[in-house]
């Protein structure tokens, strides 16, 4: 994933009136879902429309209908879809992006994993942030784990692996310096607890958070390297697979399945779907979020 540019949140008239949405945007929404698994809900169609508008301006295209032709007619359609996906996922990255995911993690999954794994000799949890971009998700996970370190995870070793294809993203992630926009969902309590001040606009992640994470460069399509990422309890891969074609996506997902320990969970982005690309994972619902589960040996569901 490339470094995320600062978003431009355009104010459009579409925001509150779904009736005003050109029906072509619903067609585009369905196409985007079919190709990438990203679903833009009706109330968020304006974000899709905004993304399209920016692309249309670039291409000097005047109507959504005309833009639809760009998205569907060869030879440039794949490239254009990629551009559009870039546009619609812009600005989604921030710390503590999905509270329902974090709630599921802390309230349901961790207690379950801890019970399952207590029988094992080493009390260790391995988490992988695959396609970590500039590190927001990785640090969020680390802070969430630290919150449990005196309770549920007392005496446990936490290892977070954070990988990305893009070297520059990995370097930015390692630095751990964030501004207001990335911190818009971070509570003041967490800011005080887990960050130090760089200047009036930037905060730096504290060393005790950083030390839980190992950042490195990894190509998810590098089969030989993927084979080494074993023994994960949780894998997060948000808005990364959307850029892969069907075959590569299936392959990466099979790797993820093998990389997970039994009883482990795989998370995608909040409005992202695996569709029907993998038959081994169990689709499971938690309040407000979904995940994919590799059944534990004791569950009898393998």
């Amino acid at each position: 994933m490339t470094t995320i540019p600062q978003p431009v949140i355009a104010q459009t008239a579409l925001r509150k009136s779904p009736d005003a949405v050109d029906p072509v945007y619903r067609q585009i929404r369905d196409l985007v879902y079919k190709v990438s698994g990203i679903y833009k809900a009706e109330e968020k169609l304006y974000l899709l429309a905004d993304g399209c508008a920016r692309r249309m301006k670039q291409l000097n295209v005047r109507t959504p209908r005309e833009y639809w032709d760009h998205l569907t007619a060869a030879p440039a359609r794949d490239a254009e879809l990629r551009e559009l996906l870039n546009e619609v996922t812009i600005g989604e990255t921030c710390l503590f992006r999905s509270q329902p995911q974090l709630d599921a993690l802390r309230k349901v999954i961790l207690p379950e994993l801890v019970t399952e794994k207590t029988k094992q000799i080493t009390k260790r949890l391995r988490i992988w942030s695959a396609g970590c971009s500039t590190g927001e998700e990785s640090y969020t996970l680390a802070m969430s784990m630290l919150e449990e370190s005196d309770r549920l995870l007392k005496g446990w070793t936490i290892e977070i692996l954070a990988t990305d294809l893009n070297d520059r993203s990995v370097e930015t992630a390692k630095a751990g310096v964030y501004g207001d926009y990335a911190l818009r969902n971070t509570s003041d309590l967490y800011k005080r607890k887990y960050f130090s001040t760089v200047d009036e606009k930037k905060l730096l992640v504290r060393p005790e958070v950083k030390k839980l994470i190992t950042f490195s460069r990894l190509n998810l399509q590098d089969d030989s390297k993927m084979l080494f990422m074993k023994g994960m309890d949780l894998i997060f891969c948000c808005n990364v697979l959307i850029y892969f074609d069907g075959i590569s996506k299936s392959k990466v997902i099979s790797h993820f399945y093998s990389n997970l320990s039994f009883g482990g969970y795989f998370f995608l982005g909040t409005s992202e779907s695996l569709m029907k690309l993998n038959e081994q994972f169990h689709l499971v619902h938690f309040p407000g979020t979904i995940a994919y589960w590799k059944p534990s040996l004791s569950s009898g569901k393998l």
Partner: protein
Amino acid sequence: MTTSLTATIRDRVQRIETMPGIPAVFLPLLKLLSHSVEEVKLDEVVRLVSYDGTIAAQCLCVAGSPLFGLAQPPKSIKAAVISLGLRRVETILLTCCLGQAFPAKKWALDPAVFWRHSLGCALVCRKFSERLAAADTEKAYMAGLLHDIGFMVNCLAFSQDFALAMERASQEGIPLDEAERATMGFTHCETGQALAEKWKLADDIVEVIAHHHAIEHSQKAQPLVALVHLSDLLCRMRGLGYGYYERHKVDLIADPAWAILLKQHRDLEAMDLVLFTFELDEAVEEIHALVATVFGSAPALART
């Protein structure tokens, strides 16, 4: 459950004369709805509704919600029937009648939360059954709407015990029926069944009310019960639950109910459950709005 407990439930349900707030046209309307659609005459429905201006007005308002398929509220019940069909208008009327049952005093289960769950489940049941060939979509809606009426009985006739169950459920994050069984020894399924039998609801609806947490006990309507069971779970996972965080994961496809439904409807196999979930999310805001504007504004009058 012991015989004496069953007798206690029946006795208390008998003593609920009419649900407070439920309009007088509700039971006659229910009776009409238990007939097959060919036998019900439009005039009869219109005549019944004309006795209650509030219900008629609310029905038009609900019919004009995007959730029910019309862009504008229709001008009259007749016009609504022409656009939406008699069956759908009947289910809307039923929704409005039940929606009036807002209590004067506070329930252990917040009525707005209860109605959101019931309306949400009704809509999910309908949407779900639309994906399945040869399923009766309006019946599915009605089943979803009524599946939890036992909670109304609990709030009215077992209020103290039920309040304890509710408190335990929210504190421990466990399913409400589990908490009911642990604290009261019975659940909304039994109390709902007693009320449904008193109201002489159709057999399949009674089965839904009685067995939506234990499908294996359903004898005559397993696919419908399974459909409601799954829709209920999905609603609880997508912000249309009972107002507290349920600390468990739900695996709908591994649920026995899914297998039961699949046996009857092979088309279920092709369903994209994640997309279905995302589409449900789109309706959630609308459901909140509908409950707030229509049911929230209903006068909390006891008409016993």
